[in-house]
């Protein structure tokens, strides 16, 4: 029977290398998929591994009020965002638009589009849009969490998401047209 994650974490806290590797084996695939949404394959692997090392270093700060997976994912996403910032991500955006009230209808698209279409469209977007859409739509973080991860005010997070959303819908519309529907 596989060891419970609780036991593994206890052993990781004690500095047990075997336990660390078991945690790695258990989570690396999933975490790599997460990291791949932000970085290229090689960079994603590095960020994922760095994330694991960081998680092991500060394992004492892990409290069981969140699941270990989501705690780890957050660390790895932070690592990815750091990497993006280091490389190229445009950080400062001058806010020229007024804050608009989010309407749930804004997210609606044609039913003939499937999930893969949306994922593809997100992947092909400009980096700043891609990151915010990933964080919001795929990881399911709220604006408070996104503002912490990207180190931006909540208001900026909302503005960026709105721009990303408009872009995404535009992309999807193009795809929809190109496919000759």
């Amino acid at each position, binding site marked *: 029977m596989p060891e419970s994650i609780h036991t593994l974490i206890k052993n990781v806290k004690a500095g047990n290398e075997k336990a660390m590797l078991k945690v790695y084996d258990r989570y690396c695939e999933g975490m790599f998929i997460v990291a791949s949404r932000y970085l290229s394959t090689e960079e994603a692997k590095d960020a994922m591994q760095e994330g694991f090392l960081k998680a*092991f270093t500060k394992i004492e700060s892990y409290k069981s009020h969140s699941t270990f997976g989501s705690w780890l994912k957050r660390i790895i996403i932070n690592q990815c965002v750091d990497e993006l910032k280091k490389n190229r991500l445009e950080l400062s955006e001058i806010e020229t638009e007024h804050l608009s009230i989010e309407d749930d209808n804004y*997210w609606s698209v044609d039913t003939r589009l499937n999930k893969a279409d949306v994922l*593809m469209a997100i992947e092909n977007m400009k980096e700043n849009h891609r990151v915010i859409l990933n964080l919001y739509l795929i990881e399911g973080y709220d604006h408070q969490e996104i503002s912490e991860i990207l180190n931006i005010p909540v208001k900026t997070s909302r503005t960026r998401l709105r721009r990303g959303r408009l872009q995404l819908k535009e992309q999807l519309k193009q795809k929809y047209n190109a496919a000759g529907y």
Partner: protein
Amino acid sequence: MQQDIRDLLKEDTHQGNPKTKIESRLPNGHRDEFIKKLRASKTNQYPSYKLDWFYKIAAVVLVSISLAYMVFNASENETPEETVQNPKIETQMMAVEKKFLASIDAEWERFVKLTEDKVLIDRYRNKLNDLATDYDQIATQFKADPNDIILIESLVENLQKRLQLLKDIQIHIEILNQKINNDAKLL
């Protein structure tokens, strides 16, 4: 017909288009690479644990010395052996003390390097200095009267207090590390 993108994305991931990066695989040899990275990072990763253990062992050794001394004194009152025993305890005490102080210094330097918070540094410096002054006073008394159990206990207590203080510093370092990490993100 319209649908919500958010609901659409909640569907099972596995039906994703194979062309998307979602399907990309971990590069070969990633596990070995990780083991290397893990071992490389390990050398600096867990010093606090090792130190912790060292202090625990040192404290236990000190307590047992003082207990043995107490028992010895009670059972063999004023025997000639006592004069031989006393210097031995003193040397042992000094050896442990020396190790303690060296580690405290090392730990202190690491701490100062990690923070620029002058108030924090001053606070800990004062705490350590106060304890060191106390220790010196007790040590002087101990040298004058090596038979006094209470003095030995006070010395042990003093070292234990510094141990506690070191633990506090380590907690601060942890918090600082996180702060530094967060700050790095700002850049």
